[in-house]
């Protein structure tokens, strides 16, 4: 029987009940990600920031239009757990990841994250088409916070894992999107983060590489790393994650074990 709640608070109750029923109560010291009553809104047209727009807004005293992306979201993730964040487009999944990775700051509430992290978001963000694969590899590793010695130490194993050794000195613009993904993924997992964020990217590579990625993520999971995956498709998620958080219109619709949440998510009323 699927339990559905529309407020964040109620969802935590589900979470706690589930914890009492199934798992051992986790040690609070192992909490690696905690969101407490987190809300986030964006200013509409924030990027249209010409002085002219600000002046007209100020003169006409137009109210600042805000768009609420997350409302009162609370959850906790413990070391070694894997969480899937599911929901439709615009449900707030990416906003949640941006807050968790510290890229943007919440309007209210508290976000606490402990440990090093690497995010596998948007295919090869930070890659430049005119640089070679090897140059991009080194740049990306340093962007993810890898040290100089570690980068050169891991260089070969990253290239090996990516499986594109013969193209590594070619400019990135000659790569297919699958090859870019291979390289990006290889760098991100070799950074050896405590927490790995995966945002909708696994769908790009071919079957063989996808399986390799999933295996690699499982290996990290078995080492006790924490994992947060975002997707609106469920195949890989069911395989990778044990917990799930269902977001709808920026609110936590349901939170609990993977199968429980995914079952109700798949049985949600379809819009006509």
């Amino acid at each position: 029987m699927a339990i559905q709640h529309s407020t964040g608070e109620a969802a935590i109750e589900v979470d706690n009940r589930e914890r009492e029923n199934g798992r051992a109560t986790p040690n609070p010291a192992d909490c690696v990600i905690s969101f407490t009553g987190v809300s986030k809104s964006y200013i509409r047209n924030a990027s249209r920031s010409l002085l002219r727009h600000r002046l007209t807004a100020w003169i006409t005293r137009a109210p600042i239009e805000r768009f609420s992306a997350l409302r009162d979201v609370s959850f906790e993730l413990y070391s070694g757990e894997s969480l899937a964040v599911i929901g439709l487009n615009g449900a707030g999944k990416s906003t949640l990841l941006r807050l968790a990775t510290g890229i943007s700051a919440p309007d209210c509430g508290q976000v606490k994250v402990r440990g090093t992290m690497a995010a596998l978001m948007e295919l090869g963000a930070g890659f430049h088409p005119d640089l070679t694969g090897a140059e991009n590899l080194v740049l990306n590793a340093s962007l993810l916070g890898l040290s100089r010695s570690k980068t050169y130490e891991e260089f070969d194993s990253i290239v090996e894992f990516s499986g594109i050794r013969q193209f590594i000195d070619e400019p990135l613009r000659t790569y297919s999107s699958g090859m870019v993904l291979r390289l990006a993924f290889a760098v991100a997992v070799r950074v050896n983060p405590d927490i790995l964020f995966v945002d909708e990217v696994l769908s790009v590579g071919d079957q063989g590489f996808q399986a390799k990625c999933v295996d690699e993520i499982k290996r990290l999971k078995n080492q006790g790393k924490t994992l947060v995956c975002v997707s609106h498709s469920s195949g890989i998620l069911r395989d990778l994650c044990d917990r799930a958080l269902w977001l709808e219109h920026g609110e936590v619709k349901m939170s609990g074990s993977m199968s429980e949440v995914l079952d109700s998510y798949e049985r949600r009323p379809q819009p006509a």
Partner: protein
Amino acid sequence: MWDNNLIFLLQNLVLKDFRIRYRNMSLGVTWSVANPLLMMGILTFVFTRIFANPTVKHFALFALCALVPFNFYSLASNAGSTSLLDNQTLIKRVQCPRAVFPIASVLSSSLHFLIQIALLIFLLLVFGHKVNRYWLLLPPIWGMEVVFLCGMSLMTAALDIYYRDVRYLVEASGLVMFWMVPVFYSAAMIPKRYQEFYMLNPIAAVAVAGRQVLMDATRPSASLLVQLSVVSIAVLALGFMVFRWLERDFADYL
């Protein structure tokens, strides 16, 4: 440890800028040299043939001494002010200290500055100027311009995210700077009562001090050097403060 990583990141970003710029230019580094030579040629023609200035010997070198710091200002301030927007995909997706972007952009422009300095020194030696002990003052003098531009770029890059007009102001400041730096006139021609105010501009101070060392083989006054250092370091400190204050909402405005 994080500091070492930051230096590694900074180095990679500088290399990236430099590689990209030169891979897309068929003549590569030649442009860093051709641009000041062209300006020097035009200024020399105008100010020896049209508005002849008899008080200046070696007008071409005289102009180049000031053109080099001016060119660096114009290149670095423009690249610096757009550095955050140019790297917006990274800022929206990777959590790394954002202050590295404006600083990396100024440092990669510094490579062009170095090339132009090499050109200037080469020409000075060719035209018979001798190395003197005051040359030791030149690295810190030119270094202060890098410090000043890092501070300025931290401010303009951060403000440019909120008001995209900032880059046009910075562009316009390059034009103002061309006249407010003694490129084609000597510092001695500036009326006494404006001198102090005038030298508050670090680019003017760098140009004047550099010219005194390279052309006149004299030591720049201590007060000029102190003023240059104080203003540059103050601008850097202010730059970091403004940046920290604005940094929080960057990702939401991109």
